[in-house]
């Protein structure tokens, strides 16, 4: 299963049946994680990164990871911070303490979205049925993270491996997103 592991945070939920399991592409529900939305100006980044455990990336569409930590660039002043589900309070308090009076906004958005792991040789092809982005490795290298549109639903797309993507969407949109992915995947198998 190691090739299906997105990274040490976004892992397949062992208690859930795969949404799609085919030789060349699979869709797996991911375990819940702590998601924090961090917004702040440049002057606050160093302290925030230090308190969180990994530096916040400043390069557009990039990520930075450490064991059990991931910081994803969402915008010039916005990051999504990922940590294990049970570490929510510890991480939240550490960042608030590390920043003190520095102006910033830290919000727990853990339950706002759900993630699925799309992996396999055909993962890129499958996602491209609803996402108008060049997902080749040259244009969208491993580690690239972006918000975009999947058909009509806003999603976050994060490439964690050459053949592995994490697709995150709001809870109420997840049935739509994963449903369309599964449907297209099944058509791929039938073709």
């Amino acid at each position, binding site marked *: 299963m190691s090739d299906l592991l997105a990274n040490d945070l976004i892992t397949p939920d062992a208690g859930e049946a795969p949404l799609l399991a085919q030789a060349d592409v699979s869709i797996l529900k991911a375990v819940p994680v702590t998601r924090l939305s961090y917004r702040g100006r440049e002057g606050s980044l160093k302290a925030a990164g230090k308190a969180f455990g990994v530096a916040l990336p400043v390069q557009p*569409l990039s990520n930075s990871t450490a064991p059990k930590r991931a910081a994803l660039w*969402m*915008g010039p002043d916005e990051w999504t911070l990922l940590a294990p589900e049970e570490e929510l309070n510890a991480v939240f308090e550490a960042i608030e303490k590390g920043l003190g009076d520095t102006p910033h906004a830290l919000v727990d958005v853990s339950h706002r979205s759900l993630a699925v792991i799309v992996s396999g040789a055909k993962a890129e092809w499958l996602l491209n049925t609803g996402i108008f982005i060049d997902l080749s490795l040259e244009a969208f290298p491993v580690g690239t993270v972006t918000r975009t549109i999947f058909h009509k639903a806003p999603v976050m797309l994060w490439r964690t491996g050459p053949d592995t993507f994490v697709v995150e969407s709001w809870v109420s949109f997840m049935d739509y997103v994963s449903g369309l992915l599964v449907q297209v995947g099944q058509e791929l198998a039938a073709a």
Partner: protein
Amino acid sequence: MLLVYCPYCDVERAETEFACRGEAHIARPADPTQVSDEDWVNYLYMRTNTKGVYAERWRHIHGCGRFFNAVRDTVSDRFLKFYKAGETMPDLEAIAKEAGK
């Protein structure tokens, strides 16, 4: 579909990720209480509705969420320049000339 370049993300993306928010470089009067009704109407509603090259605001709503400005030719629908919010308006005539309009 139009391809729009986001100067914050440094990528070109499909138009569906963006929202166009009308003419750029319209400054809100610093002290609205001192503005006459007529001037306020002009500020609020009146736009140049240019045929040709003009600057407009775009927002990368399904990406980084940032506003930025673009120079677009409204006749050909071609984008001629993208620049970040807060930067001064480029010389539209020069851009138009360069594009051969």
